[in-house]
C-alpha cells in the first residue's frame, strides 16, 4: 500500500505550495486514475507519490509518504526505486542513452538492482512480452518512433517489478492500438498485486481500466470515487477535464429523454 497523508509540496526556490493537503491511498492491486486540467499538479503529485520530490529534486514536503507501511523520509532514491517507479511523459528522456539495443535498455533497471544475469534476462523478457516488443529488441533505442519509445519506457519500468507504479501520461504518444496494449499490460500487472497511479488525459482509457478516479485542480483533490461517479459528475467538465465517451453519450441520451443505462450497460458489456 502506498499512502500520502496531508501532503503539501513546494518546489525549491518557489514561495507557494503547488500541492495542498493531499490524502491519497493506493491499495495493492488497485489502479487509480488521476485526472485534472493542465497545471493542476498531476505531474507534481506523481513526483511526490514516487518519493522523487523531495528526495531527488529538492523542495519541501509537509505531511508524509508511506510505502508498504514504511515512512520514506530519509530513504535514498535507489531504495525508493526498489519499491515504487515513476514513468514520465516524454519517452526520449526515459531512455538511458547508454544501451545499444532495446533489450539492453529494458534490462538496465534490473541490472542496476545488482541481480544475477539470469534473473535480469527473465525480467526483461517478461516485460518485453507484456508490451509485445519482441520484434524490436535488437533495434537501437534512439531510432524508435515516439510510440515505440513510450512502450520501451514502460517496459523498462515494469522490468524492475516494483510494488507500485506511477505513470504520468503513459500513452501520450500512442495510437489507439498502442493505448489498448498499454491498458492490457497495466491490467495484467495490477492482477499480480502491483498498485498503479496513472495520470492521463485519455479518460476513455481510465474509464475501462481504473477502479477509482481522483480529480485534482489547483493542487487539491476535488473528487475521489468510482469511475462512473467521478466521470458523470458535471463538476469535472467545469474544471476542464473531458469525460470519457461513455459519460458524454450517457449525458446526451439523458438530455434527449432516453434511458442511458441501456446503452452504457451495453458498452460496458462490450468492453
Amino acid at each position: 500500500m502506498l499512502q500520502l497523508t496531508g501532503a503539501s509540496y513546494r518546489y525549491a526556490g518557489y514561495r507557494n505550495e503547488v500541492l495542498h493537503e493531499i490524502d491519497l491511498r493506493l491499495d495493492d492491486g488497485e489502479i487509480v486514475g488521476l485526472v485534472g486540467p493542465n497545471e493542476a499538479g498531476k505531474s507534481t503529485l506523481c513526483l511526490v507519490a514516487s518519493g522523487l520530490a523531495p528526495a531527488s529534486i529538492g523542495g519541501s514536503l509537509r505531511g508524509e509518504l508511506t510505502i508498504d507501511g514504511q515512512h520514506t523520509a530519509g530513504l535514498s532514491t535507489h531504495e525508493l526505486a526498489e519499491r515504487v517507479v515513476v514513468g514520465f511523459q516524454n519517452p526520449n528522456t526515459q531512455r538511458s542513452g547508454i544501451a545499444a539495443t532495446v533489450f539492453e535498455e529494458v534490462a538496465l533497471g534490473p541490472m542496476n538492482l545488482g541481480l544475477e544475469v539470469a534473473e535480469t534476462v527473465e525480467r526483461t523478457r517478461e516485460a518485453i512480452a507484456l508490451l509485445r516488443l519482441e520484434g524490436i529488441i535488437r533495434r537501437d533505442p534512439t531510432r524508435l518512433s515516439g510510440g515505440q519509445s513510450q512502450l520501451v519506457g514502460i517496459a523498462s519500468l515494469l522490468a524492475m517489478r516494483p510494488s507500485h507504479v506511477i505513470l504520468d501520461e503513459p500513452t501520450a504518444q500512442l495510437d489507439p492500438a498502442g493505448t489498448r496494449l498499454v491498458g492490457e499490460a497495466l491490467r495484467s500487472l495490477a492482477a499480480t498485486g502491483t498498485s498503479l497511479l496513472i495520470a492521463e488525459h485519455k479518460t476513455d482509457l481510465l474509464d475501462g481500466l481504473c477502479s477509482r478516479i481522483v480529480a485534482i485542480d489547483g493542487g487539491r483533490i476535488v473528487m475521489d470515487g468510482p469511475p462512473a461517479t467521478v466521470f458523470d459528475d458535471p463538476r469535472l467538465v467545469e474544471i476542464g477535464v473531458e469525460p470519457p465517451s461513455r459519460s458524454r453519450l450517457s449525458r446526451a441520451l439523458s438530455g434527449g429523454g432516453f434511458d442511458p443505462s441501456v446503452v452504457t450497460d451495453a458498452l460496458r458489456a462490450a468492453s
Partner: protein
Amino acid sequence: MARRLVRISALLTLPIAISVVLVSVFTRAGTHVLFTIGPFDATVEGVDFAAQTLVRLFAISTSIGLFGLTTDPRSFVLDLERRGLSPRFAFVAAATLESVPAMVERASVIASAQRARGLDTEGSIRARLRGLLPLAAPVILSSLTEVEERSLALEVRAFGKPGKRHLLWRMPDSRTQLAVRALLLLLLFLAIGARLTGTLPSIL
C-alpha cells in the same frame, strides 16, 4: 574510410594548426630568415618546429579519428565497465559521447521549427547571426531540461544503487586481438625507450 579519416583528422587539427604555424614560424628565434612581415621574421627553425608540431598533432587527431570511426561508444563504455570502471563514470563517458549527435539532431529540429515560424537561417551572414539567438536559446534550455528529466528517469531505475552490476554481455575478444594489443604495447615501450636513449630522432 581512409578519406573520411584524413578529413576528420584535418578538421580536428586545423584550428590548432593555424595558430601553431603562425606563432612558430614568426616568433621562433633562428639564424636563417626566410622573409619578413613588419616586425616579424619567418625563420627556417620556426618552419621546422611548426612542421614537427603539425606531424604530432596530425598523429594524435588521426588516432582519435580512427578510434571514433571504428568503435561504437556504447560498446566501448560498457566494456570499460566490465573491466572495472565505475557505472557512474561509464554513464558520464557514454552520455558525453552521445550528447554531440543528440544536440545536433535537436538543433536541426529546432531550426526547422523556427524556420516554419519565419526565421531566416539561410540568408546573408548578418541574417544568420541574427537567427543564432532564437536557435541557441531553445537548444540550450531544452538540453538542460532533458538532462534533469533523464537523471530522474535513471534514478527511478536504481542507477544510483551502490555495488556491482552483472553486465549482460562481454565484447568478443579474440586471441588475435589480444596478440595485436600486446604487440602494440611492446612497440610503444620500445618507441619510448628508443626516444629516451636517442636512438630515434625527435620527430618521432
